[in-house]
């Protein structure tokens, strides 16, 4: 339906051959709009050299890397860029499926500090799926240069999740990011994020549905998120939810693209 300038054909990278089940204590994933520097953050944290580029579609499949923190192995998954948790392309579907059904311990949402407004949509959508979110306010140097000044504390207290300003290309803010990822993964700090409040009539229906949903096992999926999909009659998502919630293992290996 629409695409973003400038367009260059998707570059396939074949790092998918990296085994997915290497021993990791925690699984962390990086999500965010296209072109916010997810792969730069990924490379800075893992020391890998995943291809990065200033155009959409650079990362077309999930890429995996490892890093250590506090003596533990953390697996980092770099997801393709997405505008929405309602996927519109195969890449967006990979991102959505992993966040919903891949059971990451923490979702790091990388946002472009210079286009914060349009990036927060995704943050709010991810928060409906999981409270275990760290917002990485990337490209903060670029935002400053363009004359933006961001009240990081205020943003964090409005969302009620950690917000870490970074300039991943220069390596600044990464220690702080690692610390917050760790705090969230190891459940040192539990977040109760501020969720989008819908009009009264919707909230009433959501509440009723959530009560009904307590009767069935959702394998850890957020009741509110499932209730929202039911209200929207999102058939594609409901099929996946049905499939996932009847799995006994509770961890669904993401589709291979």
């Amino acid at each position, binding site marked *: *339906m*629409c*695409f*973003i*300038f400038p367009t260059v054909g998707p570059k396939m990278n074949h790092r998918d051959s990296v085994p997915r089940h290497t021993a990791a204590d925690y699984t962390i994933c990086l999500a965010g709009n296209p072109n916010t520097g997810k792969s730069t953050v990924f490379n800075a944290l893992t020391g890998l050299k995943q291809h990065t580029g200033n155009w959409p579609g650079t990362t077309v499949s999930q890429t995996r890397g490892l890093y250590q923190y506090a003596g533990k192995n953390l697996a980092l998954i770099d997801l393709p860029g997405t*505008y929405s948790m*309602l996927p519109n392309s195969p890449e967006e579907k990979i991102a959505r499926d992993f966040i919903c059904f891949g059971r990451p311990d923490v979702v790091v949402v990388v946002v472009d500090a210079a286009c914060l*407004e*349009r990036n927060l*949509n995704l943050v709010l959508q991810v928060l409906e799926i999981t409270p275990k979110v760290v917002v990485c306010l990337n490209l903060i140097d670029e935002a400053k240069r363009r004359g933006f000044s961001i009240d990081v504390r205020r943003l964090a207290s409005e969302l009620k999740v950690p917000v870490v300003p970074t300039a991943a290309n220069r390596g600044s803010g990464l220690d702080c990011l690692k610390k917050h990822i760790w705090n969230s993964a190891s459940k040192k700090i539990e977040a109760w994020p501020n969720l989008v409040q819908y009009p009264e009539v919707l909230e009433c229906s959501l509440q009723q549905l959530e009560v009904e949903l307590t009767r069935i096992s959702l394998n850890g999926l957020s009741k509110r998120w499932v209730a929202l999909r039911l209200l929207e009659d999102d058939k594609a998502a409901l099929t996946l939810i049905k499939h996932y919630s009847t799995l006994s293992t509770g961890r669904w290996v993401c589709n291979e693209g």
Partner: protein
Amino acid sequence: MGLGQMIYTLADMPMGTAGMIMRLKAQSSTRRRLLDLGLVPGTVVRYVRQSPLGDPIAFDIRGAVVALRKVDAQTVFVDPVKE
């Protein structure tokens, strides 16, 4: 929109001008997609370029340039913004 008032959509904007989103005609998943791209009522968008064949057309939406098909642009009602 009152009787006699011109219906003005993103597709009617002259190149280089800006408009404020008033209403989206699209429904269901198309509507969600447009909202996800930042076409939320109250947002000011600018028509920045046109492809050689006139379709799609590109708009600056909240700091990013997004191309829309003409048929989709025609479903987004705007008010012209004077600068």
